[in-house]
């Protein structure tokens, strides 16, 4: 008897729990209504800083470019258009830039944008008043003047052909001085959306800026960016309807294609195998070239990105349009014999041993590393893979340049100078491979002084050729990001930078 009753009680409790759980089957209101004006977008991880002048992570700008604008805004083709500046003039000597501020542009706090807001924003980045610069991007500016409320005059120390490219919100968002201290907690900008709240590791919510200067935009009322690191759970959220837009792993596309719109975006990034030129044997160009011949990029692309990537030959992606030098991607065709011959010439007939240090924060690095190591083995190079934490990678490899070989991807910029400037020899911070080539340095100095765009393009192309011929690194690929989109939405625009333009997204008619 008693036994039975105990079992009975157990069962009762369990069934109660289960029924209590399954009783109310009402989930969150699913988006069945025709008009979706509030959407959720999945982002892989949290922003670094909400303050646009402090932020550097590309994921931050993917979100926050909806909140901030610069004097110029980026366009999907990689060019820029006047935004807060309505018109601009450059003096003949290329030293004086005069910007007229657009009427009707106001900050999210309701104040109209005035010339001194622009001056304040630039001086904040340059640390003019505080002595604490947040970037060296504007070291070229000698003085900023505001002759009237609508005019900003910037005087440069020397001509700078890539100056205008630095005037988007990526590098110089225009923000109001009144919000100086709170910019990192309650950011205020002029963009199509205004910031509502940020819950670390959970979500960031923005809502429509009703007074946005581009009339009729944005279409959406509210966008909730949810931070989900795990791809698998992001996919489940997409399928469960909790998320409307997310990037998806390439091998999942075929599975998702029938229920979602798939958009493939060229990232304009450069995924590369870098080696430390300051260390032997990588200081020898023949060794670097040998490694270039040893690596089969197509295999890495297939294994790492499921084939969804564009092969590269230099530190630039075709997404950069006219600046891109074509034909370099096949400069080094995989050729084991040639690689061995070059190694022998360099004094390593039997190859050598080295380490390939990669970060653990994204599996693409270790995946690519495994393929690369097998390929290197064929020419006699024994590379040991060392997987380290991202923080350690940033400190040891990127900061101290204490490594032999590594794999990393550099995210895209609008400005070709910023993309190629990494390899200038005195760029100690970001010149990861310690590339040192006087001819290259001269080209980059010339291009900055060059006013004619056709000539700039020519110089940039020459610079790319040098990187290829000198085998600065093994430039592997620009990988694409596949996006899955709720089929009820349209207007998703892709940019050659990390920017998810929410202002164009709208419910399908």
């Amino acid at each position, binding site marked *: 008897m008693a036994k039975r009753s105990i079992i009975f009680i157990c069962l009762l409790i369990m069934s109660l729990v289960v029924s209590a759980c399954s009783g109310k089957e009402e989930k969150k209101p699913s988006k069945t209504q025709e008009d979706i004006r509030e959407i959720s977008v999945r982002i892989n991880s949290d922003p670094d800083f909400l303050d646009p002048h402090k932020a550097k992570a590309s994921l931050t700008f993917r979100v926050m470019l909806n909140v901030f604008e610069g004097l110029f805004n980026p366009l999907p083709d990689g060019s820029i258009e006047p935004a807060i500046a309505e018109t601009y003039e450059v003096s003949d000597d290329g030293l004086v830039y005069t910007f007229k501020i657009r009427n009707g542009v106001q900050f999210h706090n309701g104040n109209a944008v005035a010339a001194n807001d622009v001056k304040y924003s630039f001086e904040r980045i340059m640390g003019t008043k505080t002595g604490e610069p947040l970037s060296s991007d504007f070291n070229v500016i000698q003085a900023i003047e505001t002759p009237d409320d609508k005019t900003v005059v910037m005087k440069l120390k020397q001509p700078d052909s890539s100056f205008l490219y630095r005037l988007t919100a990526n590098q110089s968002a225009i923000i109001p001085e009144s919000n100086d201290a709170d910019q990192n907690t309650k950011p205020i900008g002029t963009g199509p959306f205004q910031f509502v709240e940020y*819950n670390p590791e959970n979500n960031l919510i923005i809502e429509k800026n009703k007074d946005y200067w581009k009339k009729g935009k944005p279409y959406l009322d509210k966008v909730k960016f949810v931070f989900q690191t795990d791809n698998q759970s992001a996919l489940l959220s997409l399928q469960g309807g909790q998320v409307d837009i997310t990037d998806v792993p390439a091998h999942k596309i075929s599975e998702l294609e029938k229920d979602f719109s798939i958009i493939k975006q060229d990232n304009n990034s450069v995924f590369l195998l870098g080696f430390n030129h300051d260390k032997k044997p990588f200081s020898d160009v023949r060794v670097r070239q040998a490694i270039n011949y040893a690596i089969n990029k197509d295999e890495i692309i297939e294994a790492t990105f499921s084939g969804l990537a564009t092969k590269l030959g230099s530190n630039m992606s075709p997404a950069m349009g006219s600046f891109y030098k074509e034909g370099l991607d096949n400069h080094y065709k995989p050729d084991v014999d040639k690689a061995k011959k070059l190694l022998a010439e360099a004094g390593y007939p039997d190859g050598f041993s080295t380490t390939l240090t990669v970060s653990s924060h994204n599996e693409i690095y270790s995946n690519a590393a495994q393929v690369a190591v097998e390929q290197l083995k064929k020419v006699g190079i024994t590379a040991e893979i060392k997987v380290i934490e991202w923080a350690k990678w940033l*400190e040891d490899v990127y900061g101290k340049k204490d490594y032999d070989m590594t794999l990393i991807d550099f995210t895209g910029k609008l400005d070709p100078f910023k993309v190629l400037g990494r390899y200038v020899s005195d760029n100690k911070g970001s010149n990861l491979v310690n590339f040192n080539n006087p001819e290259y340095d001269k080209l980059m100095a010339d291009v900055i002084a060059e006013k004619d765009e056709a000539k700039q393009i020519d110089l940039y192309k020459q610079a790319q050729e040098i990187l290829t011929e000198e085998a600065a690194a093994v430039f592997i690929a620009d990988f694409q990001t596949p996006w899955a989109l709720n089929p009820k939405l349209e207007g998703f625009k892709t940019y050659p930078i990390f920017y998810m333009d929410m202002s164009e997204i709208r419910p399908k008619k």
Partner: protein
Amino acid sequence: MTYIIRRFILLFVTLIFISVITFLVFQILPGDPVRTILGPEAEEVQVETLRRQMGLDKPAHVQYLNLVQGFFQGDMGDSIRFSRPVTSLIMERLPITISLAMFSLIIVIFVAIPLGIFTARRENKWSDFLLSSFTQLGMAIPTFFVGMMLILFIGMTFSFFSTGGYVPWSESVAGAIGSLALPALTIALPQIAISFRYARNAILEQSKLDYVRTARGKGLTEAVVVYKHVLKNSMIPVLTVFGLILAEVIAGTIVVEQVFSLPGIGRLLITAVSYRDFPVVQGIVLYIAFVVVLINFIVDILYTVLDPRIRLKE
């Protein structure tokens, strides 16, 4: 009274000890918070400026002493990564972690004790044997694996159970239960395995004592013997185990929050470590230590309630 004072001093010493260890461990870890937060696009001048603005350019021990000084004023400092007070970051996540821990504990209690009674009374029968084997299995399988299996087989089949993410209680009670049920079960399973054996053995041990025979002898029903006499007496060793289990449950939330992407304290701790966000790590570690010490304290008090013969003295 002196017991309580002694306990408090012990708590204080424990926390200081833990804080120093956390600090020393952080000194060994390579990596700089500002660099890690900004990633490879960072410029040198910016890294320097931000380090200065956040006070990270000062020697490590000075930063640490400032932090400790803040503690005594009730301020746990600001997160380096999120530039907001550590206390508020922890408080925001506390409901999730506490709900999860409580939920698992309830599952453990409601399954393990009845199961213990059930098997104790069928000692050496096949059901006892079968359940004991399951227990071994339950203890051997790592939580993250159990979690993923639950996601695959239950989460994907029944839409009620969420496979990741959290629905606040205020938004939907059913949603909250749905989002916590599987992670709670994941944490509970190995603990059920441990505690049910304890309960079983404790009950068995008690059942063989003289007073049980007397109780039976004077004609009490089996139910009264089991529930009134045996169960109450066997709860003291079980309670000790539950004190330990609650600590295990809290540790379990750290792993399980990763698997189910629940934005609780455990996940905050993991990311704080990878971003070298020392104030946050320090805050959470101290907080968890405090809770564990507190639980043991409460368990001690409960002993005296269950068995008035026990006096608290050391």
